[in-house]
């Protein structure tokens, strides 16, 4: 099940938010070796202070199996401040209908508990949710920074991604900025490739987000 949590409401969902920060530490700090700040086993950065929108994929026991974070590009973004080296020269991304997704990750162990296809199922759920949110909010594109390993995973999942520039090394990690188009077609394509019959961002998902606040 997908749950959306507004950054300003993090206190009301402290257990889930805490689990998300631990998952991010495990994935970006331990497994991928990104240059992230981990304190007490939790990864946080300054963009968590800007009231992002968190999307969490929960399993039947309400454990956080995957997550991503969204920010509007009209405000401060990681692509603008941290990863601008990944953009083509002179490109500044600022648009009300282009949002930035960051910290996209899956708990591989929990995902595999679901079965052989668990990992790809959770990945598809997150990707679909990302595009569905974009479609709901009237967006044209989502931009995000990933490493080349994740790029392969997204392509395998049938996610229609486009490179904005060739990968550059950040630390030891070949990193790149990519683009996803939010449209009925791209969502339908993703659903079809992953055998999904319906979306994850339903009216009740939005209802819960706004009523909890």
């Amino acid at each position, binding site marked *: 099940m997908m749950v959306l949590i507004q950054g300003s409401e993090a206190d009301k969902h402290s257990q889930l938010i805490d689990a998300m920060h631990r998952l991010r530490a495990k994935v970006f700090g331990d497994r991928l070796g990104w240059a992230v700040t981990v304190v007490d086993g939790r990864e946080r950065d300054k963009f968590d202070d800007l009231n992002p929108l968190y999307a969490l994929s929960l399993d039947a026991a309400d454990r956080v199996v995957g997550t991503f974070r969204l920010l509007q590009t009209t405000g401060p973004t990681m692509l603008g401040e941290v990863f601008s080296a990944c953009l083509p*020269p002179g490109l500044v*991304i*600022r*648009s009300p209908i*282009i949002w930035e997704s960051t910290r996209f990750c899956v708990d591989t162990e929990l995902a595999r508990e679901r079965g052989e296809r668990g990992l790809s199922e959770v990945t598809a759920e997150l990707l679909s949710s990302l595009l569905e949110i974009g479609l709901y909010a009237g967006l044209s594109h989502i931009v995000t920074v990933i490493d080349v390993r994740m790029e392969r995973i997204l392509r395998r999942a049938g996610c229609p991604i486009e490179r904005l520039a060739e990968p550059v090394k950040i630390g030891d990690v070949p990193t790149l900025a990519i683009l996803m188009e939010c449209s009925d077609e791209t969502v339908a394509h993703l659903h079809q490739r992953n055998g999904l019959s319906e979306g994850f961002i339903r009216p009740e998902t939005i209802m819960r987000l706004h009523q909890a*606040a």
Partner: protein
Amino acid sequence: MLGRVFYDLVDEIDKVLQEHKGSEFLATLAQRYGLSHVAYLGINLPKQDDKEAYITTTYSDKWVRRYVSQHYVRIDPVIQVGLQGLLPLDWQTVRDSNPAIKRFFGEAGEFGVGRQGLSFPIRGLHGETAMFSINSHVSDAEWRKVKKEFMRDFQILAYHFHTHVLEEIGKLDEGPRQLSPREIECLKWAAAGKSAWETSRILGISSCTVEFYLEAARVKLNAVNKVQAVAKAVRKHIL
């Protein structure tokens, strides 16, 4: 896809904005989209002297006075829930959440505020936030139909108006307005009448990427759509 109204509107709203008539701009939007009212509230705008909110609406003075005197800002979910948010707030999800809020929306209706509404949170680079709200009297069924079109159009129009407000108070962060080489190429082919798909063939990139560059260029040129972006780029001798 943008709505047809949006395209018809482009020239008109720009003229109004150039004459610095914010409320007239909102009234034009309301009329063209068949809305009851439109409202803009800017908070933490980078004004030097005071910290007052910047408010422009098409609401009646009576309703604004009532809202202020009753301190409705303390319960108004558009402010309490929506302003911190990222996703546009559909009033349907909050208007019945407790008796006080239900009464608030009921009373707002008596002052002509539509029962259906969407509020778009806006965020700027320096912590400024704003809320752009539209509302309408249509039925639930009709609302579901028009909502999708409203989303894209008003994301763009809301930010366009916000930019205008910043400009008006002399606080528009000019930022990097220079176009990148790819943005210029895409605009050039758009100016030559090529579709995104045709341009994608010419430049050897995907049409999704072409649309992306055109959108990035549109915002930098402070245009509301591609046609206007091209016109502005020509006027500035960028093309």
